[in-house]
């Protein structure tokens, strides 16, 4: 379990991490999502005691990181940087880490086997491909058989096979009851691996929700309508209390509307329809909308969502989701 309490990091004028409070729980994969520069890596470095928080607190199983005796036995981490001396062999890299935490040498052979690097154990790390380097980093994280694992952008630059391997590994670690915390800037990647989701933008917490809830709240469903008589249709719709929004291509969009209802309404008013189709927005769009608003809030104080290229109105975010995680940051 990792607990963050008002965690804050300030670099001069810039707030890289702004009062983050959330808990990473065992037995599942928690995705840590945010656009590049949102403060994910800084947060992770503070969790490992590498960067000192300006304010707030982070605890690993109730303890501060530097209070852990043999920390690799509690938490294993793969950070974004390569984090190893290229002139050292894979075996010696892991051996020096193992020795510093009183982990037996036999365990080095075990983790090398787990990540499939046994054949190149005596080779220097600088000759490794990106995927092999990533595997070596993961071997280091697994070394102390920790209950908590943390991966910073683990699939970056990997081939499909490597991505699949890491995904499977993370799921199996969580299935063993471990805490798995993984960062990414790709919603699509998270949708495939994470059970729980923590979203940040500009250092602020935007969402802390289960993956299922996130999908339910953010897969916006709407009805898309095209008609040669848009004005008449708009009148008919507003007469029935339905709000329609004009999309960039001239089509109309009705949030949460039922196509049957709209179709019948059009027939009653004798409006011809060229298109009447139920639509589902992708999670990637939902994520971009979520984080774009956090960026725009700081850029200017106009209504969030104004001038967005996809012409989705602020109403696109359902009221339920606003109350869930959007209400406080909009005020603040």
């Amino acid at each position, binding site marked *: 379990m990792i607990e963050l309490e008002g965690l804050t990091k300030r670099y001069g004028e810039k707030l890289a991490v702004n009062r983050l409070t959330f808990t990473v729980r065992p037995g599942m994969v928690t995705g840590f999502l945010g656009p590049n520069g949102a403060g994910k890596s800084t947060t992770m*470095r503070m969790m*490992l*005691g*590498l*960067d*000192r928080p300006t304010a707030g607190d982070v605890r690993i199983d109730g303890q501060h*990181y*530097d209070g*852990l*005796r*043999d*920390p*690799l036995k509690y938490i294993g*981490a793969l*950070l974004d*940087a*390569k*984090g*190893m*001396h*290229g*002139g*050292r*062999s894979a075996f*010696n890299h892991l*051996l*020096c*880490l*193992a*020795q*510093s*935490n*009183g982990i037996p040498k036999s365990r080095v052979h075990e983790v090398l086997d787990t990540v499939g690097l046994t054949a190149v154990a005596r080779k220097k790390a600088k000759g490794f491909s990106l995927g092999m380097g990533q595997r070596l980093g993961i071997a*280091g994280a697994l070394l102390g058989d920790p209950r908590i694992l943390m991966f910073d952008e683990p699939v970056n630059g990997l081939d499909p096979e490597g991505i699949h391997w890491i995904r499977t590994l993370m799921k199996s670690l969580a299935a063993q009851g471990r805490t798995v915390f993984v960062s990414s800037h790709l919603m699509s990647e998270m949708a495939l691996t994470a059970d729980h989701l923590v979203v940040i933008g500009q250092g602020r917490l935007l969402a802390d929700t289960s993956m299922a809830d996130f999908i339910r709240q953010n897969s916006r469903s709407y009805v898309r309508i095209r008609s040669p008589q848009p004005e008449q249709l708009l009148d008919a719709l507003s007469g029935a209390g339905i709000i329609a929004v004009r999309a960039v291509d001239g089509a109309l969009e009705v949030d949460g509307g039922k196509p049957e209802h709209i179709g019948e309404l059009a027939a009653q008013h004798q409006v011809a329809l060229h298109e009447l189709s139920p639509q589902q927005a992708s999670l990637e769009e939902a994520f971009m909308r979520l984080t774009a608003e956090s960026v725009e809030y700081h850029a200017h104080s106009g209504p969030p969502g104004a001038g967005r290229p996809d012409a989705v109105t602020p109403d696109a975010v359902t009221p339920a989701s606003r109350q869930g995680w959007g209400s406080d940051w909009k005020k603040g």
Partner: protein
Amino acid sequence: MAATQVVQSEWTKIRSVASTVWTLSLAAVVTVALGMLISLLSADEWATMSPRERLSFDPTFISFAGMSLGQLAMIVFGVLVVSNEYSTGMIRTSLAAVPQRGTFLFSKLAVATALAFVVSLATSFVAFFLGQAMLGEHSASLGDAGVLRAVLGGGLYMTLIAVFSMGVAAMLRSPMLSLGILMPFFFLISAILGNVSATKKVGQFLPDQAGSKIMQVVAPADNDTPYGPWGGLGIMVLWVAVALLGGYTLLKKRDA
């Protein structure tokens, strides 16, 4: 976190990179070989020396002449041991494994210093004996007054040069920046300050000039240094202590 675990880990680190072997062996070979060459040339010069020069002829010190160049390899060793962590990104992995930064730094320094001391002491003895062999009839023997102290001191001097470099590298982190400051400092600035009479008083308190007094057996004719061999070494130890304290303080408070 048991310190012995960390020391063991640092030993694995230091023995598993190539730079350890080549910097230390370069330091030893250059010191010994250049010392032999200069000893040989000095022996030839004896015939043309004035009586005054003969009086201050110091065969022990001459056999250590190679250290002026050999110490540069020792500086590289000291710098790389520490700054490798930063230039490779290993520092984050290391500090995640050993979050007690004092334990981390001083275990690393202890291992590197011990290794540097073994190599330096052996180098000093070899440089002395081979140098004396080149000096022939003008040579000193280990039993002469002050000679054993000078030879042991040669080992201490080289070790302290390495430790000073480790402290500087711990402060500066970048290997290029550390070497860019230390190399000219020891190879040029110290020599220039020491040779210009106006700045000589300052120059003699620099770590290398003060420390190298320990290797002198016969004082130069115009000797006016206000400290003796051990006093000089003490001044050098102070420099080293300041560098280490600076490195430790910065590591303690900096983000990794």
